[in-house]
């Protein structure tokens, strides 16, 4: 067999697969950000915090109500989505007429509040969340051992990502959404309630973050800090993909996950930074991002 830079191909395949798993989290989160940005022109800094809230809702359901993982998959995104709609109705909607940067600043403040409040209440060490019984164990793929749960995460998030892409790009509802992004007044004139649509879009975007939180809970610790570091990377993913581009968010999310996986083999210290390097390069060559268009 061939060796690539001294790394046996088995290891390489393993790392690529693991990268794909991480990438599916990036894809899910950046998809929500992209949907929100496309519709509201808001960079949602609270996305990471709401991802954390999603994981915590799953943990709270299990601890206090005894509702397991599968219920959490349904309930947690709903709760997070409703929180999102409430935030949009009471706060974000007041800012649309202003510079878009105010949306960024508002959600930055919201992120601090969410994280601080959970940290105050539950401490920082985090809470354990078990892998559901049906997904315990793993498969030996020959080149690596793949836990069943990780396989499930990849499949679930790919299905959700492409489902969302299909709904927005290929259905009638999606067509209204895209039209409202271009010209809200005209769409309103056609009898569509644009403010409600905007609220629902925000709610849906953050519900995706909540869902990612539930998916992450059994792998990572359910901790108030889990979203803080992730959000900055996900921002970079969205910028590289092209702000507001749905397909761009999904494809770059997966791609960068794999790139990060490779970095972990060759120069692990830099694995947190490689995304930003790519971002700087992409913006220099193609300022609107890989899949974006100039606004």
């Amino acid at each position: 067999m061939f060796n690539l830079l001294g790394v046996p191909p088995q290891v390489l395949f393993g790392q690529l697969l693991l990268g794909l798993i991480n990438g599916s989290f990036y894809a899910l989160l950046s998809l929500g950000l992209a949907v929100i940005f496309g519709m509201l022109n808001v960079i949602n800094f609270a996305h990471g915090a709401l991802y954390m809230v999603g994981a915590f809702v799953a943990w709270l359901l299990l601890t206090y109500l005894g509702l397991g993982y599968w219920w959490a998959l349904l309930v947690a995104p709903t709760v997070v989505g409703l929180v999102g709609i409430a935030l949009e109705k009471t706060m974000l909607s007041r800012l649309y007429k202003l510079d878009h940067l105010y949306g960024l600043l508002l959600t930055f403040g919201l992120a601090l509040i969410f994280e601080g409040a959970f940290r105050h209440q539950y401490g920082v060490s985090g809470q354990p969340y078990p892998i559901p019984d049906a997904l315990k164990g793993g498969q030996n793929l020959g080149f690596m051992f793949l836990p069943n749960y990780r396989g499930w995460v990849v499949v679930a998030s790919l299905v959700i990502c492409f489902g969302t892409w299909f709904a927005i790009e290929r259905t009638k509802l999606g067509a209204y959404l895209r039209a409202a992004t271009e010209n809200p007044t005209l769409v309103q004139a056609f009898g569509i309630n644009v403010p409600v649509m905007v609220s629902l879009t925000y709610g849906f975007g953050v519900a995706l973050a909540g869902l990612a939180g539930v998916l992450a809970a059994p792998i990572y610790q359910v901790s108030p800090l889990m979203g803080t570091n992730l959000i900055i990377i996900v921002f970079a993913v969205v910028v590289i993909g092209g702000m507001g581009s749905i397909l761009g968010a999904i494809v770059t999310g997966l791609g960068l996950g794999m790139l990060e996986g490779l970095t972990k083999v060759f120069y692990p210290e830099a694995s947190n930074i490689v995304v930003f390097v790519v971002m700087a390069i992409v913006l220099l060559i193609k300022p609107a991002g890989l899949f974006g268009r100039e606004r």
Partner: protein
Amino acid sequence: MRSLLLAGTALLTLAAAAAPAAAQVSDNVVRIGVLNDRSGIYADLAGEGSAIAARMAAEEFGNKVAGAAVEIVVADHQNKADIAASKAREWVDTGGVDVIADVPNSAAALAVQGIARDKKRIFLMSGPGATALSGAQCSPYGFQWTYDNYAMAAGTGRALYEQGKKKWFFVTADYAFGQSLEEETTKMVKSLGGTIAGAVRHPLGTSDFSSFLLQAQGSGADVIGLANAGGDTVNAVKQAAEFGITQSGQSLAGLLMFITDVNALGLPSAQGLMLTTGFYWDMDDQTRDWSKKFEAKAGKKPTMVQAGVYSAVKHYLKAVEAAKTDDADKVVAKMRELPVEDMFAKKGKIAANGRMFHDMYLAQVKTPAESKGAWDYYKIVKTIPADTAFMDPKQSGCPLVK
């Protein structure tokens, strides 16, 4: 005019004569400042619990020592060295604080050590692990009480070697403490004749460890040493269980783990883990008694850092009582002279570099079946005697050691 001057002089002499009786304790209060992280990553292992421990120590003296009241003040350094430095300065300059305690986070502790040295204030370190604090950056007023990176790493390294696990692989946080943990363990393992199969450095705050664990698995090592801390360690252990690493015969060793980390992980993921600790609540009647009182106030069992704060503050107050003053130089002399004797340390001794020598313990995390309830987490496998638990002061690089 002349009479006024005379009267003034007379007054001054009077004041001077009266001084020795009143000046034993400055402003008649012994003020202890507990400075630590109350909102960030060390809030659980130190935080308010350390303040509670300090108060418990003061209460044992009836909140009075050498005729003066004992007062505990607290502040949050938010894990920022500059906030720690300015708070420490402020306490010393304007707050009348006589001694600063705890200070997890080695950057913050190094900053406070410098200030305490300049201003001649006693610094009781329970939270920080950097060996430099009793090494190159040691101070005649600084005491490293509970643990340090050397004790944690070398203790675990030696103990596992003795169990026949001789080939190590490290998953190391790419921070100074991670590198020092790796270095100390490597030195110990190699000096005993073991080998190092490899190491991988990861950034601080990594959430996904699967690729590092895969590399560790492929290395064929007997032990995977986790030279990281807090959330990183917790995630690494959790994912090691997911990838079936312990089932395949490799052991995991947490080189810097606290009981709060084990609590966060839960026994199903943490079982079998080897670690070194300076304190465990369930060792004898004394520790159980004290920990019960602590739990009544804090709502959870103490970590070794919190128990260490109690022990250090108690020893300090004992020394103030014996010296009948809070003058730093005199108290320091008494602290070094008296043995440290309480529920935390038996026959502890303070070395010239400020390191407090006491027994450390090698612990293994229980299986869920062995555990009888909440916080019943450790089996104490072995006591590491004080004289081998810590680095020889002569090798610490501390200029105070001759």
